[in-house]
């Protein structure tokens, strides 16, 4: 319990620190509104006179995309911090401190992500409301959807931490991040709901870890069912455990490559 308290403190400090940059962050989010506008323009044409596509209305699809973008835009690009600390050697200072480097960075990234999440949720709400009107059942689904959105952020954080650790072996890890991001965009259902995928791909895409960052949280918000929520929660739990184990193994392997000289 005591060890968890220190990570909670790191989370709190980052959270407070990030609040100071909130006005600048919010003004930078105009891009988010533009993305929602582009999606609205595209999907309005695609729907045409159709009421439903793969069981979702135009309104549900746009709200769905607002939630997947919310997860994407709230994430903290922690892989850059980790990569820089590995490249300039400052990671050595973190190794002899009484905390796990992996836990420290996770708490820090989540602190930043959750500060970003609130204004993006509000901005997303207002944008979607403006373009397609209210989402039926929003308030009822919100507590469950929020749990999965935060779970999705944690999953993304762990992916990025693991990608950052690859800097022990390669000069620049950014291309790995691009690839990971695109897997979320496409297979994770960030750009359009997996329900619209061809039948042969739907089952696989729903089971892959990327769907638990985008598809399941957004689906729970726009078309709530206990089953969808529990599937999302269970999948997130499994993949969070797997990614943490992978990260720990990567970190152990990487430590063998660290040489600390002098001071």
């Amino acid at each position: 319990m005591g060890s968890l308290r220190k990570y909670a403190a790191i989370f709190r400090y980052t959270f407070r620190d990030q609040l100071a940059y909130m006005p600048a962050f919010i003004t930078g989010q105009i891009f988010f509104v533009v993305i929602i506008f582009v999606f609205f323009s595209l999907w309005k044409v695609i729907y045409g006179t159709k009421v439903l596509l793969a069981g979702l209305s135009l309104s549900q699809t746009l709200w769905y995309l607002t939630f997947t973008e919310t997860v994407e835009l709230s994430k903290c690009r922690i892989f850059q911090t980790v990569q820089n600390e590995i490249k300039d050697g400052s990671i050595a200072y973190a190794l002899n401190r009484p905390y796990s480097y992996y836990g420290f960075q996770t708490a820090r990234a989540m602190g930043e992500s959750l500060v970003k999440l609130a204004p993006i949720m509000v901005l997303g709400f207002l944008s979607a409301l403006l373009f397609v009107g209210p989402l039926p059942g929003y308030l009822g689904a919100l507590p469950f959807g929020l749990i999965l959105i935060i779970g999705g952020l944690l999953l993304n954080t762990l992916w990025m931490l693991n990608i950052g650790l690859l800097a022990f072996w390669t000069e620049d890890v950014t291309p790995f991040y691009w690839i990971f991001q695109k897997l979320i965009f496409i297979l994770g259902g960030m750009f359009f709901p997996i329900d619209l995928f061809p039948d042969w791909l739907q089952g696989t895409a729903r089971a892959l870890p990327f769907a638990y960052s985008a598809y399941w949280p957004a689906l729970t918000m726009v078309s709530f069912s206990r089953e969808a929520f529990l599937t999302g929660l269970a999948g997130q739990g499994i993949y969070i455990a797997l990614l943490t184990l992978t990260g720990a193994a990567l970190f152990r392997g990487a430590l063998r490559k660290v040489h600390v000289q002098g001071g």
Partner: protein
Amino acid sequence: MVRIIGKYIRFNLAAAMEYRVSFLVQVLGMALNNSAFIFFWLLLFEKVGEINGYGFREVMLLWSLTAAGYGINEVFLGNGRFLSPIIYRGELDVYLLQPVPLLPNILCSRMNTSGWGDLAYGIVLFLLSQELTPLRLLLFPLLCLLAAFLFSAINVLYNSLTFYMGNAENLAGSVYNMVLMFATYPGTIFKGASTWIMHTLLPAALVIWIPTELILDFSWEKGLLLLGADGLMILLAILLFRGGLKRYASGNRMGTRL
């Protein structure tokens, strides 16, 4: 001037090749990154057939032109994105002292390595996805070059606002990204005031949509109109930069460019 641009290209390329593995990973990573969108559009068109006159092949043409034009800009005119920090940090002094035309000197002095990936991707995608005719093979490189100049003009135009209003870095970055994003969607999905904006303030239509129409169905009239509009945009960028330069005050900053 041509000699110094040639030297910049050789020098920047040699610097990038110093870290050969990193260079290749960035180039291949960017090409793979862009390829993800092929999959997106394939899945979408399989479901919906056609979007306001655009099919899969037309959207791939949008992507080819955007990627190659953007790639040329990032590789050969790569410093445009960084003009704002150069101005507000007082780093223009270093360029002002050199006996070569200022704006080309600034723009060409940086090469963004991943741009090679975009350029290669754009060319390969065009060759693989389009019906190739002699006219299209001639038009594609010309229109990519024109798109690159326009991307660069957008960078110069919006970053030059830093001379007038303090720091315009975020605004310029957002505009660049928005033009890029709009450019890769069919222009016909936008209606009303937004289409006007995309012909002027966020000129995705001039950079990509109209060149795409030209490749699909060439007309001299449209081609000349595009040239005129592009020329105006480039001229406006140069004038805004020159006007701003008169307001620039040296920051007494000592520095070297290595």
